[in-house]
């Protein structure tokens, strides 16, 4: 595989808080267009690792590039070339659908001439034309989530980081959401996803499982199941994470 195809490439990333090592020697390559599942037990260091990759947190040691920019020296450039969506912070409830899209597009530095057209296109693609001037807080949870995803990807970033994007959503909506992820991936976007739903891990091209600050397993779901002689990703996760020491 050519290095130029890797949109995330980091080596020996370590983050310490005092004498606590949250992330310990993380090395990782993620290819363009890949759906990468980033799993781990609670407290394994997923959030810290993700913050470093997004340019929000400076590694204690280690190096690497995200979207072609250096994570130590060019965090501002990284932020402009990625999208970020989490379940907790995603949209402004009192703003309308279109206002939210416009706002995020502006924040991510899209040219003003494109924003209007793109926002209208996105409303149509989401099937939210009828509600585009309604405040987002009135929408059902599943709609909000799909809208948040669109807001995070309107500026066609190289990578989108999705932090537990489907928590608490009903199964049908969860699937609609994953179809959006598939579509984005087929259009060449890279998706970096954390989730607690292990069936969702099966939808990823490759999955890493983090335990106590280190990546313990990394392969395609099929490869992992073979390696651990397990029938499902749920079993794989249990085998890998059962001896987690951090609580």
């Amino acid at each position: 595989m050519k290095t130029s195809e890797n949109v995330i490439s980091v080596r020996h990333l370590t983050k310490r808080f005092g004498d606590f090592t949250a992330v310990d020697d993380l090395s990782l390559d993620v290819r363009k267009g890949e759906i990468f599942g980033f799993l781990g037990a609670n407290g394994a260091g997923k959030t810290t690792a993700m913050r470093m990759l997004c340019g929000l947190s400076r590694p204690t040691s280690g190096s690497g590039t995200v979207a072609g920019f250096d994570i130590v020296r060019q965090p501002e450039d990284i932020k402009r070339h990625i999208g970020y969506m989490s379940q907790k912070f995603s949209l402004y409830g009192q703003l309308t659908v279109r206002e939210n899209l416009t706002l995020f597009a502006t924040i991510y530095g899209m040219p003003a001439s494109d924003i209007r057209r793109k926002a209208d296109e996105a409303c149509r693609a989401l099937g939210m034309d009828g509600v585009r001037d309604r405040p987002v807080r009135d929408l059902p949870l599943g709609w909000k989530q799909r809208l948040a995803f669109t807001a995070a990807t309107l500026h066609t970033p190289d990578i989108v980081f999705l932090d537990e994007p489907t928590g608490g959503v009903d199964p049908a909506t969860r699937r609609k959401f994953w179809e959006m992820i598939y579509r984005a991936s087929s259009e060449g976007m890279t998706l970096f996803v954390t989730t607690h739903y292990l069936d969702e891990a099966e939808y990823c091209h490759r999955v890493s499982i983090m335990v106590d600050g280190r990546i313990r397993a990394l392969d395609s779901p099929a490869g992992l199941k073979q390696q651990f002689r397990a029938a499902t990703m749920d079993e794989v996760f249990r085998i890998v994470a059962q001896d987690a020491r951090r609580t």
Partner: protein
Amino acid sequence: MNSLIDIRGLTKDYGRTTALREVTFSVPEGSIFGLIGPDGAGKTTLYRILATLLTPDRGTATVAGLDVAREFRQLRTLIGYMPERFSLYPDLTVDENLHFFASLFGVKVRDHFDLIAPIFSQLARFPNRRAGALSGGMKQKLALSCALIHRPRILLLDEPTTGVDAVSRSEFWGMLATLREKGITILVSTSYMDEAARCDRIALLHRGRILGIDTPTRLTARLGDPLYAASAGEMYPLLLALRGMPDVKDCYTFGATLHVVADEGFDPDGTETALRRQGLADVRIRPVEATIEDLFIKLAQHED
């Protein structure tokens, strides 16, 4: 078996939105009863009514024969309630939290420690750590210990596994099974459909209505239509292709495969061939057992 919780025609509105509509079910004593549904299904409202924090607009609910609206004072010692978020005092230590909640019920921690000992064992290593500094799994165990410290007859657990990793979740369900052995009746809600199988009986809740109540196995049998699992080298094109096939009622992602809800006339082998002809590699279609999640998708779509 006697039913310990009896709910009849429970309805609750918040302004124009209906949180619960004509909800009726009963929970047998000494069982684990699961309320399965996504966020916004009305689970928390139902819990708040049973925990005597809310009064219903219509309908009745009795717990251990006591009416939740009128006899709430006697009822409160019988209930152990764990709200949606792990409600602890983050600035108090593990021990301080436990002792405080014990004192609310006029008991000492040692009075019923045998009940929580297996749950508390991992926490006992750091009695002086602030609750706010615990991990999600540990907070969950402490919150459960606090809810059990007065030895309630009924445990009301509102989404106790949300945001907790799969290992801790499975461990948690193990603890619930142990508590059931000790005669405690448990009403537990979850938005993780795969947890439904660990309940004795479940109710599927969607937008304030009950879609179905039964044992997990009997409920899944209700799907009716034949169900197949399909896989191929490229999953997304397979999904799009299958949706265009005849006799396919619905097709959606399901773990490593796609689930195909089909009509009786569906021909898996013929479909495989047709898909290969469309250029898809490694196509496999085989029948599978339905899960609660399949049923929920069907019933929820029916509602829409």
